[in-house]
């Protein structure tokens, strides 16, 4: 069975060129760049070149990049650096739809006595900019808003927010894990202070991330240790992975136009085809969206069961349903958007990449409708061609938090 991989927002396949670039550093070129002998010396230049390639993709200076182990470490580094570097400020401004690397810090910060404002989104996943503007205060240590949402692909007006923050003297961080390599960036032209990225979302392996820190920004390290990364992140450089990320950045920069034309067209073809299924809804703003992502809810059925059927045809996707989120509630992103509960559990995210083909899209479009039909035939909420009247739509508890 051939794999059709439409789950690139979860992780991507390591590009063969990336693998080839890394291989020597997993074999013969094992030196520690800090060592004062030729084994250390021979990795210095490849490291420097890799850093330059990532800087080219981001449009920044190589010194502004700090390598980390993953996107989550980058997010935590940015968050805690801003809080530690400005101990007099006790307010964090963020949104309700952030990745868990930021989102799950919120309750911890509140316990520690910080004030946190989470800006809401409308039903298209768009930020309430007026609310955001009003919530920036002289006490705000950090404003953190992702560049693009991992579940819906919705893009926030990051440059505009960065400008607002800069005018008010507030440090601005963006989790751009989903955006890097899909949206052109020129950080030195922007007023973004910090930006997180993860290698495995752009065809580098898992285990490497980076944080952009604008030159001159006060910084406090998260991982305290040696002098690596100019004293900003201790720990021996992960040479093979840094080299891999450099190659991946080079490829991503070269593929940006294709990502925004051919991949976008494939995504649109897939989305249009799936929307022919009755009672299906796109979640998120279709205009301001990553070119590779679509999130569609199929009402009255549950996401995990769709995924398992898709997988039996080799098609990989993901879902915001409770059963797949590892918790018992549907994704916090869909809930923040107020996606109706008839649809929240049946959401499917398909995220493409440059490796995908039209044949794959068409194959999926052929297999998808019968899966939905089969599950609807099983569902107590479906009768013949439409929703059935059922007592089970909401639960019988009067003040259930989900039925609201």
């Amino acid at each position, binding site marked *: 069975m051939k794999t059709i991989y439409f789950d690139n927002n979860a992780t991507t396949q390591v590009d063969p060129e990336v693998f080839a670039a890394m291989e020597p550093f997993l074999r013969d070129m094992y030196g520690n760049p800090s060592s004062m002998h030729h084994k250390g010396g021979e990795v210095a230049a490849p490291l420097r070149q890799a850093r330059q390639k990532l800087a080219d993709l981001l449009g920044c200076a190589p010194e502004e990049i700090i390598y980390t182990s993953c996107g989550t470490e980058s997010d935590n580094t940015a968050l805690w650096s801003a809080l530690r570097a400005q101990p007099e400020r006790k307010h964090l401004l963020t949104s309700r739809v952030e990745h868990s690397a930021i989102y799950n810090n919120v309750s911890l910060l509140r316990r520690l006595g910080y004030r946190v404002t989470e800006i809401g989104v409308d039903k298209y996943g768009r930020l309430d900019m007026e609310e955001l503007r009003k919530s920036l205060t002289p006490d705000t240590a950090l404003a953190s808003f992702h560049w693009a949402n991992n579940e819906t692909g919705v893009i926030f007006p990051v440059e505009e927010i960065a400008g607002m923050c800069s005018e008010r003297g507030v440090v601005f961080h963006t989790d751009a894990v989903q955006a890097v390599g899909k949206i052109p960036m020129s950080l030195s032209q922007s007023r973004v202070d910090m930006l997180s990225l993860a290698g495995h979302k752009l065809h580098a392996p898992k285990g490497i991330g980076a944080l952009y820190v604008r030159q001159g920004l006060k910084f406090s390290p998260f991982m305290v240790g040696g002098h690596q990364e100019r004293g900003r992140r201790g720990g021996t450089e992960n040479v093979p992975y840094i080299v891999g990320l450099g190659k991946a950045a080079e490829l991503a920069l070269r593929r940006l136009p294709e990502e925004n034309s051919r991949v976008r067209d494939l995504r649109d073809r897939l989305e249009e085809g799936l929307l022919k299924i009755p009672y299906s809804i796109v979640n998120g703003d279709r205009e301001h969206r990553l070119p590779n992502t679509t999130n569609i809810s199929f009402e*009255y*059925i*549950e996401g*995990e*069961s769709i995924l*398992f*059927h898709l997988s*039996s045809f080799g098609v990989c996707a993901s879902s915001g*349903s*409770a*059963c*797949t989120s*590892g*918790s*018992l*509630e*549907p994704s916090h992103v869909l809930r923040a958007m107020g996606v109706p*509960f*008839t649809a929240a*559990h049946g959401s499917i995210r398909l995220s493409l990449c440059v490796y995908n083909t039209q044949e794959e899209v068409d194959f999926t479009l052929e297999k998808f409708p019968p899966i939905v039909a089969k599950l609807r*035939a*099983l*569902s*107590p*909420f479906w009768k013949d061609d439409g929703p059935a009247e*059922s*007592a*089970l*739509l*909401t*639960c*019988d*508890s009067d*003040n*259930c*938090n*989900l*039925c609201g």
Partner: protein
Amino acid sequence: MWEYTDRVMDHFENPRNVGVVSRIDAEGQVGSLSCGDALRLTLQVDKDKDTIEDAKFQTFGCASAIASSSALTEMIKGKTIDEALSITNQDIAEYLGGLPREKMHCSVMGQEALEAAVSNYRGVPIKSAQGELICKCFGVTDAEIEKVVKTNRLTTVEEITQFTKAGGGCGQCKPKLEELLALILHQAKTPESPAKPPRMTALRRIKLIEEAITQEIAPALMRDGGDIELIDVDGNEVFVTLKGACASCPASNLTLTDFVTEKLRALVDPNIVVKEYRA
């Protein structure tokens, strides 16, 4: 990806007994669309023999919810009502070759739908749906929780969530679940046994306090990185030292009064006073 057994995948991909029976003698509905899974079970009953002639289901939910429903209908067809009622959620899970722990609530949903259908058939109220509502996110009552805890011999709140979903939403009811669990486990440990001494001697009291601390309280604190040590007992006064994360935790006063005291009062004696001993 969940590690489902071949049997679960078989019942998911080829569900048996889908739909509604031709003559509905009994009907049970549990769960809801908003909660993420729902099951409607209909039965056709031979009233003379009190036997289930046919059973069909409609399920909204994940692969294991569909498989559990399918398995349930296979298991109860041809059984008498009483035989069917003796099926536990464990039996459903075993029929499927096991379910991931996090998915055990699917088997519970099946069992509850059966119970609801039989109650409907007999015209009596559903027993486990009575009681106090504990989890508002998923509408779970103390009676349902008690039943599942006892049937499956659960010992932690995490397991209660895996089996009933209670506590899996906002999490506000978790302290209540702790309390309820302690109460149920206490009952389970001391059934109306004739061996129970008529009066609590000092020795027995100390033993009970020790047991409560090592078996109930310390494990709960350890989950948050803390620990507790029993120093001394003097009448109703219990002296303890908090360790690990608890020792430096500003909320430790709260831990003591709220948690340790309540536990000891519930498990040993309602007059107990807990005092922190600092060396």
